């Protein structure tokens, strides 16, 4: 029924059944469902996910290794994300989208840097690389039990020259320290044709600065509070940009000129708050 899917009003929640749940870490789960439109979404795009009776959340679309399937990866944090995390097998969630732009994938040697659920758009990016790409992926986590997607990345990159490097802040797995420590070492040894990052904003700020200091093309997928997802409500305003409509992916050069990137974000009321006070 491909033609029926194409007629769907993608701006209205469409109910999908959760078919499989993967426990990625003690705080992160991936919920897999069948949906042709979402399975074709591009890396960096997101969907608005309705948890009936609870709330609607913007979620980056996660890759699935199976055809016509897509997924959302959620970390239990607030009430709404914890409700999605606790969703049961067979439960329905509503999905509208996909929305937003996507990463511009350069050819050659690419560096991907992600932390936590920020790895989700980078995992989807791996689905769009071709066999000539040489990929280095740095996975960041706080501790060993929070490391995720290492096996999946190796599986998705089995036909590529690739390196998957993990870092943990406490040093219980992989390199001890931050993803940017590893990135700094890598940039001393070699160069890349493109850098792609998603994760905590202060991490992305450093990744962008480091890549640009070496004159490497860099893009980041930005997260902001989103209520409509379609450029109407203004909740995701970042300077003169609407992250839902102009992003979520922005070029690093552009981001460094945006004085809100890495500094401030808007809360649910639209008031501006500092990232530094949050960390």
């Amino acid at each position, binding site marked *: 029924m491909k033609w029926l899917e194409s007629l769907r009003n993608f701006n209205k929640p469409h109910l999908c059944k959760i078919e499989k749940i993967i426990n990625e870490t003690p705080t992160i789960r991936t919920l897999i469902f069948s949906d042709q439109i979402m399975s074709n979404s591009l890396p960096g795009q997101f969907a608005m996910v309705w948890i009936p009776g*609870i709330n609607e959340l913007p979620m980056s679309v996660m890759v699935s290794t199976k055809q016509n399937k897509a997924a959302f990866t959620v970390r239990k944090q607030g009430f709404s994300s914890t409700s999605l995390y606790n969703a049961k097998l067979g439960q329905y969630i509503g999905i509208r989208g996909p929305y937003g732009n996507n990463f511009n994938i350069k050819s050659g040697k690419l560096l991907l840097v992600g932390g936590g659920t920020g790895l989700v758009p980078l995992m989807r990016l791996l689905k769009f690389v071709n066999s000539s790409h040489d990929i280095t992926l740095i996975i960041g986590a706080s501790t060993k039990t929070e490391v995720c997607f290492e096996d999946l990345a190796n599986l998705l990159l089995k036909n590529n020259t690739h390196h998957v490097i993990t870092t943990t802040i406490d040093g219980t797995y992989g390199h001890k320290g931050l993803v940017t420590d590893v990135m700094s070492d890598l940039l001393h040894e070699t160069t890349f044709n493109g850098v792609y990052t998603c994760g905590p904003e202060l991490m992305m700020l450093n990744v962008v600065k480091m890549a640009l200091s070496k004159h490497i093309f860099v893009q980041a997928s930005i997260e902001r509070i989103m209520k409509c997802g379609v450029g109407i*409500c203004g909740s995701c305003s970042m300077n003169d940009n609407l992250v839902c409509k102009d992003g979520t992916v922005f070029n690093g050069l552009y981001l460094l000129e945006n004085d809100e990137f890495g500094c401030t974000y808007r809360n649910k009321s639209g008031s501006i708050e500092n990232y530094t006070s949050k960390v």
Partner: protein
Amino acid sequence: MIKNIRLLIIFINCFIFKMKPDISTHIGPIFIDNPTILASGILGISIQVFDRIYSSGAGAVVTKSISVMPSDGYNGPSLFSVGGDGWLNAIGLSNPGVDNFSKILNQNTKIPIIVSLVGSHSVDFITMVKKLHNSKILAYELNLSCPHVEKVGLDVGDDPELVYDIVKKIKSVTNTPIIAKIGLGSINYLDTIHAACDGGINAITAINTLRAMSIDIDAMRPILGNKIGGLSGRPIKTIAIRCVYEISSRYDIPIIGCGGISDWSDAVEFILAGASAVQIGSIINNKWMKIFSDINLGLINYMTKKNFTNIGEMVGISTKF
């Protein structure tokens, strides 16, 4: 300075080269370079976004409705499409509150900003007007018509005595023009307009979204987090046209038309019904910020074809029929 340059260009076009009709417009005491205004509730909390919209061709922008205290709004879904360029929303009047917003407004140097205010009684409105006293503001728009938040919006608009009291008291503390945004509630909306006019209102914006609801038949529950919300976009245009026509026929009050305007021909229709300007909202999702310049260009072409030299000549022409 920038405004003067814009006016000069219009002057040169109109009187020297006789190339383009003049699309600047007066809404009572309010003058704007062109009749397209960003509607309240849309993209309205960032001065940089306002600047982008103004640079894209809007004659003015209306802010999100500002309240005395900050508000987070409702849980989602807050907005979704009902098809046919129609949208159902219940954002819940989320806004940073007047104190935070006055800091945002203090950054304004050149943008014609109309500040939308929402409150329950005259004290709320007067508190906010006093706090915004030093801000660069073109006008205030009183939200008397949000259809999905209790004790404000339509709950106020449905009480003509309260409307009269609010308008009269705001007029006593500010010289900034005041617009009342009205909607269709449980009383005859013309009674609200009558009360606002008696209180000394400078203009009317008609109409707000219409109270509406949608149920997902698979989930078997209302979709909006707040269950009930407001319908906007193309499906409400003919209702809004009817209202503008009725107000224009009965009252000598400037009108800003709002509701489902999706292209220049819709804007012309509202102007012929009696609107001196139009507000653009839902269609921004579809046509993004170029909608303002698109409408202005279409208006100029229409006026050239019909031999109109300024907007004023067109306002309310259809009401003689």
